[in-house]
């Protein structure tokens, strides 16, 4: 049932619950075979900015036999009313209760959204544990980056999809459709699905533990199920499905623009970065493909800004050509370009002149570490010289705002590294004053003021990275270090903001958690945890109580791991080899950098077993396009 007006008038931002967006898909529910519920476990405004949802929504809806509808997490006020009035969670498109769908697919973008996932199940009247769900309930599946360590949700989700949606979703739905005709039971359907690439069905794996509580074995308990589940991905992004229309929300969301994905993967190999490992190999789209896609999307959405996204936009082979084509094609139609993660060089300064939105954006650097030593440890190939000369160039072209991103708690971190954060900010301000002086000397009459925003996040080691064995700093360590840096930053025009270390504790427990962590997350939900990614809602005392009541010890999960431990995600294969991760870890401790994989292949293993060299092929295609 669609929510009544009376209820909508009682909640904040009622437009979150009305659907009816431009380009929303409408189908006759009688004429489809498969009802798929795409569930984004966060607020509407956040979920609607997610490009993955746009892709999967239109990918599934292009099938005549399938109707994919959307679910978002109801806000706290709506949840309260739903429980009071006995309302069940229903889809935006048709108001169909979640419980009546064939599949409910959750996207796992961030560990702190897990309590929302539980809440959405609960508001649908669906039991948490898969063992407690009979044939009458939908199949609960989950994908997205956090699915690379699925274990904290393994007792809850029926199957995980490891990898990119476009690769195997069609086949999964085809298999399901055929098996349903044969009237197979859910367990048997899941068994057949487990044989498909990228599908992980937790019920067919048994985990046993040692006396010291570490994992002793992960074993398949049914023949035919793979020992390890390998991540799947689309090989050629130019021929892969990409929607020519995008959903346009009726209200303001986090990003109000056309999102154009340039490429997947990243060549840099920064050792802390989860995305850099789980999206290999690098696959670029050709500039022509992108200009066409931009055209279609602008035509179908009426947006006035195009955002070029990727893990490292400046590394796109034909970056200059593409941006010039886009500016030429679209600026006369009053359409702006948004370019996050721009490397600062002569070309981007040219862009600052011609693209208004680039001009007002200010400059962003992500050194991540305050000293060159630590930057080398984490393989962030940005030198102080790059930063200072880039800043100088930017200040000279008129930019007055600089943002600097750092992380605290990186492996081998010392006081001198923290000091480096403050010192680097100082040096950047000095560059500004130099540029302003020179400007004045050559006649610039403007009074210029600079603002530097420094922020530090808390480092949480992630699975499938070289740092997956590292110790995460405790909450107290984070506080101490943040206060230390704060004390060193004295100037008024440098603002220092730091992320909450308490959130990092929970994130860390879940990010490297095993199956036993699910009880902990459920307990936190029972105690009222919701929207934990939202600073104003996150309540650490609830989680502390959950630790107490379930006996889960955070240090067990956030502490250092032995290199021969069986990790909870051992049976999930992201595509990079363990040997490669160990080599990178060794190099980190020796303060040795690894070149980007375009200049020298570091043998991460992504090409193995495939018999064809995807990386080289993609690179030569990109170079061809340059000519």
């Amino acid at each position, binding site marked *: 049932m669609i929510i009544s*007006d*009376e*209820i*909508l*008038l*009682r909640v904040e931002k*009622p*437009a979150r619950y*009305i*659907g*009816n*967006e*431009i380009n929303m898909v409408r189908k006759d529910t009688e004429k489809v075979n498969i009802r798929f519920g795409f569930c984004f476990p966060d607020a509407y405004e956040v979920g609607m900015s997610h490009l993955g949802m746009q892709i999967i929504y239109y990918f599934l809806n292009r099938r005549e036999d399938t109707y994919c509808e959307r679910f978002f997490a109801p806000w706290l006020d709506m949840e309260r009313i739903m429980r009071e009035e006995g309302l069940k969670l229903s889809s935006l498109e048709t108001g169909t209760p979640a419980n009546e769908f064939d599949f409910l697919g959750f996207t796992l973008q961030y560990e702190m959204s897990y309590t929302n996932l539980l809440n959405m199940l609960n508001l649908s009247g669906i039991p948490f544990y898969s063992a407690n769900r009979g044939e009458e309930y939908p199949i609960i599946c989950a994908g997205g980056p956090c699915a690379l360590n699925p274990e904290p949700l393994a007792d809850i989700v029926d199957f995980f999809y490891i990898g990119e949606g476009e690769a195997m979703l069609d086949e999964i739905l085809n298999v399901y459709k055929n098996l349903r005709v044969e009237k197979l039971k859910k367990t048997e359907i899941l068994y057949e699905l487990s044989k498909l690439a990228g599908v992980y069905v937790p019920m067919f794996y048994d985990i046993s533990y040692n006396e010291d509580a570490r994992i002793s074995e992960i074993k398949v308990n049914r023949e035919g199920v793979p020992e390890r589940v390998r991540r799947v991905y689309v090989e050629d992004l130019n021929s892969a499905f990409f929607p020519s229309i995008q959903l*346009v929300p*009726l*209200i*303001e969301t986090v990003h*109000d623009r056309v999102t154009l994905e340039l490429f997947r993967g990243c060549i840099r190999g920064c050792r802390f970065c989860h995305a850099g490992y789980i999206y290999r190999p690098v696959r670029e789209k050709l500039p022509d493909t992108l200009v066409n896609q931009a055209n279609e999307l602008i*035509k*179908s*959405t*009426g*947006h*006035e800004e195009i955002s070029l996204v990727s893990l490292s936009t400046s590394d796109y082979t034909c970056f200059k050509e593409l941006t010039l084509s886009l500016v030429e094609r679209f600026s006369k139609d*009053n359409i702006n370009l948004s370019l996050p993660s721009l490397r600062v060089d002569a070309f981007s300064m040219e862009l600052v002149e011609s693209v*208004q939105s680039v001009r007002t954006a200010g400059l962003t650097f992500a050194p991540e570490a305050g000293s060159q030593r630590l930057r080398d440890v984490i393989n962030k190939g940005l030198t102080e010289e790059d930063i200072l000369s880039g800043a100088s160039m930017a200040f000279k072209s008129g930019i007055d705002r600089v943002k600097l991103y750092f992380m605290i708690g990186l492996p081998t971190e010392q006081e001198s590294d923290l000091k480096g954060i403050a010192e680097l900010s100082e040096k950047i301000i000095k560059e500004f004053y130099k540029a302003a002086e020179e400007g004045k000397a050559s006649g610039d009459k403007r009074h210029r003021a600079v603002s530097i925003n420094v922020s530090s996040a808390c480092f949480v080691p992630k699975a499938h990275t070289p740092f997956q064995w590292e110790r995460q700093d405790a909450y107290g360590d984070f506080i101490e270090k943040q206060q230390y840096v704060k004390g060193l930053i004295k100037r008024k025009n440098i603002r220092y903001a730091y992320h909450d270390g308490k959130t990092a504790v929970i994130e860390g427990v879940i990010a490297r958690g095993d199956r036993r962590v699910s009880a902990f997350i459920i307990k936190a939900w029972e105690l009222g945890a919701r929207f934990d990614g939202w600073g104003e809602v996150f309540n650490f005392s609830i989680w502390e109580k959950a630790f107490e009541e379930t006996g889960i010890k955070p240090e067990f999960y956030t502490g250092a791991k032995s290199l021969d431990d069986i990790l909870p995600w051992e049976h999930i294969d992201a595509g990079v080899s363990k040997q490669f991760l160990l080599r990178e870890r060794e190099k980190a401790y020796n303060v040795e950098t690894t070149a980007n994989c375009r200049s020298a292949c570091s043998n991460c293993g992504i090409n193995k077993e495939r018999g064809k060299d995807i990386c080289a092929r993609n690179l030569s295609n990109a170079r061809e396009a340059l000519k």
Partner: protein
Amino acid sequence: MRIRYLIRFEKKGCLKFIGHLDLIKLMQRCVKLSGIDIDYSKGFNPRQLVSVALPLSVGTEGFSEYAVFEMKSEINERDICERVNAVMPEGLSITGCRSMPETEKNPASLIRAAEYTINLPYAEELDKYTAEILKSSTLKLEKPVKYKKGRGNKVYGSGLTETIDIRSGIYDIKPCGERCVNMLIAQGSADNLKPELVIKCLCAKMNIDYIPHKNTYVRKELYKQGENGSFISLFS
């Protein structure tokens, strides 16, 4: 020479839940999708010259709302309606369009009154109480008071209230059915009265609780000053 068109539109159904700023953005998006030759502001940050005359509260439907489109070139009025309506979401549609002579002021500055129809499911004897309001010369109400930081005024949520008299803003009020009331009240840049305040007073008189989400509000029409003190529709 500006080329402006006065647009009359309705905002109903689930569209009543989007706010004023979101409505403007939505209109701009629909204008873009329709491809009509809208004009943009000059300067560093060009914006579409699309403006909506008077905000509508979230939850209130509007049957005769007004906007102004400023175009780069002349266009047939019917074209605007057809092309933009084709891309508008359900609940939003253009119901009329006429060109604006150069001398005509922007509707936002012309609006003097608005007509509302409000459903009150628990009301009793509406004819008696509405007549009472019209007969009296004052209609007082306690309103919580706002704070202006830095200047030391009063505080929102501090429990402090002030008494205001809204009678002069009510031009007419009468029942239109058993549980429904129709009113013509002052709205616009000169004198602005919110219909919720009138309903609050009415509920107080009827001795029933004022429960905002139980009432449905519809703004039927917006008016400007006509001849001899009368009100005429903004569209004329």
